[in-house]
């Protein structure tokens, strides 16, 4: 897409993952992951279920611990030091498959909770920021409702707005459209495309190949805890190198 090509990617490094390994007990989930993400880059990670793609992005903001290797986010080395974890989490926003909005708070309160308690933003200012981002995801009129009163697509857009209120420099998406009806997938993807166009650094686990073609500047294919192949979307879809990638693509694109 011509549009995607115009989006700026700088030489500045946002995330560096070096030789990272992770085990669940004796199960080796991630093997020797090496990945560098530049600022402004939009990466789509795909692969069969159980291949470790969610675990990989959850390691980046320390929702999962890795046992070997190193992860560096914006120059901060991820260690067990709480200060470093705090610093990284305030730079990195995340959206989940099941939205995970706080059901006991209104949409507006969902968006202002972290700015008020983590960033120590005055309430009024936090609310203004929240309304700004709710307008951006096109649901300012729902601000005083509770998450249970919204549709799935609306909830996921609120989740995106909630993350943006912390002004993150990197966004992680963990299968953001997998729990949605086909009609709602579009509204969420549109929001994500808009975000990409503004130059947000994004790592996105998804099976929406149309989204990958349109927005990503790199597609990563994972299997059995390893990065099997990574390439620009055009080359990745038209000319996959490894047999495993070819099989996967033929299965998800074949019907």
């Amino acid at each position, binding site marked *: 897409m011509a549009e995607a090509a115009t989006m700026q990617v700088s030489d500045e490094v946002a995330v560096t993952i070096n030789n990272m390994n992770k085990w669940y007990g004796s199960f080796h989930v991630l093997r020797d992951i090496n990945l560098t993400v530049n600022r402004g880059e939009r990466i789509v990670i795909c692969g069969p279920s159980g291949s470790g793609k969610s675990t990989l992005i959850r390691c980046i903001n320390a929702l999962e611990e890795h046992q070997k290797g190193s992860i560096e986010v914006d120059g901060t080395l991820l260690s067990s030091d*709480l200060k470093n974890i*705090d610093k990284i989490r305030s730079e990195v926003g995340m959206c*989940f498959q099941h939205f995970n909005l706080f*059901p006991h708070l209104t949409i507006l309160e969902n968006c202002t909770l972290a700015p008020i*308690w983590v960033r120590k933003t*005055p*309430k009024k200012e936090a609310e203004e920021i929240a309304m700004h981002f709710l307008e951006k995801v096109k649901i300012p009129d729902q601000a005083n409702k509770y998450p249970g009163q919204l549709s799935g697509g609306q909830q996921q857009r609120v*989740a995106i707005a909630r993350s943006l209120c*912390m002004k993150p420099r990197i966004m992680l998406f963990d299968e953001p459209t997998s729990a949605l009806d086909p009609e709602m997938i579009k509204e969420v993807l549109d929001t994500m495309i808009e975000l990409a166009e503004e130059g947000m650094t994004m790592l996105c686990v998804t099976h929406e190949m149309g989204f990958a073609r349109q927005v990503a500047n790199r597609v990563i294919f994972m299997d059995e805890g390893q990065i099997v192949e990574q390439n620009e979307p055009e080359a990745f879809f038209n000319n996959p190198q490894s047999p495993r990638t070819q099989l996967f693509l033929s299965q998800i694109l074949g019907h």
Partner: protein
Amino acid sequence: MAILSDPPEGPFRLSMLLSDTRYRSLTLQAITALVLALCLAYLYRNISTNLQAQGLSLGFSFLQDPSGYDINQRLVEYTSQSTHARAALVGILNTLLVAVLACITATIFGVIAGVLRLSNNWLVSKLMAFYVEIFRNIPVLIWIIIIFTIMTNVMPTPRAFRGDAATSSMLFDLFAFTNRGVYIPGPGFSNPFFASVGMNWLLVIAVLVGSFFGARAIGTWATKIQEATGDRPTTWYMILGVWLLPVAILLTVMGLTWDIPALKGFNFTGGIKIGGPLIALWFALSIYTGAFIAENVRAGIQAVSKGQTEAAGALGLRPGRIMNLVVLPQALRVIIPPLISQYLNITKNSSLAIAVGYADITATLGGITLNQTGRAIECVLLLMLFYLTASLLISAFMNVYNASIKLKER
């Protein structure tokens, strides 16, 4: 809702009373009501013929007769010359006393044990699991007896405190732990003006209520500052001051004195005596019910999905804040309803007081009064009425609280 298709026209047949959904539920209710009425009529007839045959009649005038028995643990004035009604009142107050005390301590034990059972510390979580399993799987009556037996056998007699070769001594010269109970200093007021007014405790309570609102005002003020500037001021020392200072000043003005228990003759006098039976009952009910509450608390916290903690963590909130702002508000919805049941259980289980001779309502009205007057039906009716009222009141109160924290959806 859309209406079903027009009902088929046709004459009413008797079989439709059972087969037609329009009449079926009415028919069944009518049958139930009839059976219930028959049962009640049978019971009433049975009682009245039996009472007549024995030449007895129902009536509550016996409550005005002198009771003729002593009660050692009491919150209000009472002698053996007082009426049975007064004895019942002593019993009611004793029941409420142990129920309220046990509800408070059981909640504290339960919350601590429930939260700690989820701890990542292996030893702590296993210890809490051990506590829960041991205490909730042995009947509370046995715990009451065990604790009472230990107290009466292990603690020293008042005699052990006497003489030059005393084998026991008072803790800090203030507290005496004996096999008859624990003696603690009792507060008194020496200022003649306040002593003559005779409303000392009301004044103290009034000041404490004032402090409560003061503390709330500080909280509101802190929230306002936070909303305006983003920083929440440190308030714990102000809140501490608001709670302690006014009461301390009032007590000093009223001339607070402590009546310290002292050995006189064969027993301790002065101060406040907390009888062994009360302690055994209180402690047993607390640890027993605390084990159940611990499980409620654990269930409530675990009912909040892991995604909530993760989402809050991903936003940069610290674990303590996540607990207070995200997990607990949701967990309370799950914890409160079973907690009501546990409070009701404590209130009703307190009737086991009779096993250790604690004079609760079952022991006075339902025990000695019933035996002395032979008014079994009246006494049991009054007992039932009391427990029912107390339980419904607790229920109503807790339900109001529950409604206030309910999750709003749709």
